[in-house]
């Protein structure tokens, strides 16, 4: 080993370049069977499952920046299935099951860490809501219990049981709650997809959608025109801008979502802990840093700036929950722009344009859905538009018919 290291040190070329994880970019071809707009976790997962399960490999992923450089790189990696509606719980539970097997499947460690998620109730109304969520979750095979203050104290001894003068009455303890390394998820899917023949074109922005007789025929890009049999947009915060190029509007508003992280400290917190009354969730990473975040910004904006207002309110809540954090220093803060729907559920499926599919409305909660969304969207695309049962409730036209899938209470401050 030391000799080979020495050899590399003296040789002119960089050892990894001979075995790249991702094939070198080529020129755009004239035609692809499927064009995927957006190279975040969702886009590359769709490509991976198209190639793996449906043998469709004449596929281009077009990404205006870098692989996984959007919200995939910015999220706080909460994976869970303790939602409220049966539609939601069924869907997210499948994703949690798939996440558990991803490291094996990729032969690449996504650092899946099942640590459990604890949501705090400070009011009787919250306890009622939690009871319902626990039952729905159990019904679909999840592991979720309503626990009392005494058990919470044992589980998280460092937690202040009276944060912000809001006594902790009970908690929703979701044992399946987990985190994973978000970048690794994107890289794993991208590697698996490109090894099967899919092309990933970074620094390639889609600037127009070509439609003939109501059917998508191709896309305009910063590197020229490309024809396609079908296309799917998976561009998170930019969803409405892409849809406008395809000539329709979405029931989506774009808001920034901010998060931050402290300097690393000794391990003290295994679980993820959140309080919707305090608009805050806290978790410790494997490196010891404490990540915390809250709800979206209070008004719409296409901008990833951070604000003093949010920092102040988030820090205040986090310190109320874990008072010793007042002695820590903040290391980094960042934001992503998120595509919010009115019911806090995603939009997956058909669009008003034939053969043009939607993977949007993921707001502040879409990382956890990456595997199952990729798999079901690939099924939809491969079948030429037959909507899989699991994602049928999330069609865009639910808003036209006033049958929203309301996950607001189960999402707002926990993602």
């Amino acid at each position, binding site marked *: 080993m030391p000799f080979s290291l020495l050899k590399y040190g003296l040789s002119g070329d960089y050892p990894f370049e001979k075995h790249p994880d991702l094939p070198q970019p080529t020129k755009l071809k004239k035609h692809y069977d499927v064009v995927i707009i957006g190279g975040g976790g969702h886009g590359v997962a769709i490509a991976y499952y198209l190639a793996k399960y449906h043998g469709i490999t004449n596929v281009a992923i077009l990404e205006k920046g870098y692989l996984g450089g959007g919200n995939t790189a910015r999220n706080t990696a909460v994976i869970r299935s303790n939602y409220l509606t049966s539609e939601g719980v069924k869907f997210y539970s499948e994703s949690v099951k798939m996440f558990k097997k991803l490291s094996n499947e990729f032969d690449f460690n996504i650092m899946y860490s099942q640590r459990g998620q604890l949501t705090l109730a400070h009011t009787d109304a919250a306890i009622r809501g939690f009871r319902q969520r626990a039952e729905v979750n159990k019904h679909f095979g999840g592991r979720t219990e309503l626990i009392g203050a005494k058990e919470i104290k044992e589980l998280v001894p460092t937690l202040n049981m009276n944060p912000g003068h809001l006594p902790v009455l009970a908690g929703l303890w979701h044992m399946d709650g987990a985190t994973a390394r978000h970048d690794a998820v994107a890289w794993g899917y991208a590697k698996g997809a490109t090894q099967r023949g899919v092309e990933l074109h970074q620094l390639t922005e889609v600037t127009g959608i070509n439609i003939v007789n109501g059917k998508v025929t191709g896309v305009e890009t910063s590197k020229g025109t490309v024809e396609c049999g079908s296309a799917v947009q998976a561009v998170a915060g930019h969803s409405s801008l892409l849809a406008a190029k395809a000539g329709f*509007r*979405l029931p989506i508003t*774009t808001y920034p979502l901010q998060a931050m992280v402290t300097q690393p400290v000794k391990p003290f917190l295994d679980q993820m802990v959140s309080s919707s009354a305090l608009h805050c969730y806290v978790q410790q990473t494997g490196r010891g840093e404490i990540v915390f975040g809250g709800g979206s910004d209070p*008004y719409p*904006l296409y*901008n990833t700036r951070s604000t003093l207002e949010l920092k102040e309110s988030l820090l205040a809540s986090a310190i109320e929950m874990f008072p010793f954090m007042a002695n820590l220093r903040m290391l980094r803060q960042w934001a992503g722009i998120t595509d919010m729907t009115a019911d806090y559920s995603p939009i997956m499926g058909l669009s008003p344009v034939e053969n043009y599919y939607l993977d949007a409305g993921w707001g502040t909660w879409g990382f956890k859905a990456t595997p199952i969304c990729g798999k079901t969207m690939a099924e939809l695309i491969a079948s030429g538009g037959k909507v899989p049962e699991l994602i049928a409730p999330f069609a865009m036209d639910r*808003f036209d018919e*006033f049958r929203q899938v309301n996950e607001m209470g189960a999402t707002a401050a926990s993602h």
Partner: protein
Amino acid sequence: MKIMTCPMNGPRNISEFVYGGEVQEMPDPNNCSDREWAEYVFYSDNAIQVVREWWMHSASSYWFIAERHTGSDEILKTYPSTELFKERVEFAAKATGQTS
């Protein structure tokens, strides 16, 4: 600290204000289709541009209009809603035939 100028209370910290949505023309609830109503309630251009919005100063419950750029967050103008709405808008719901 970001400042917004309230037409009634002058310049204040933006955290004192509540966003109330884009100013949009309301279709006639008694005669429009479900789709038109959904379009009004849920759908939006959500573009990067100057948008005319409803805002409220929470401490005084005063509603007004702001023109703001959704990319730069620059607030170009704020003014009383009476500049846009010359008369009162009535929201009488259609009689449903139900008593109680």
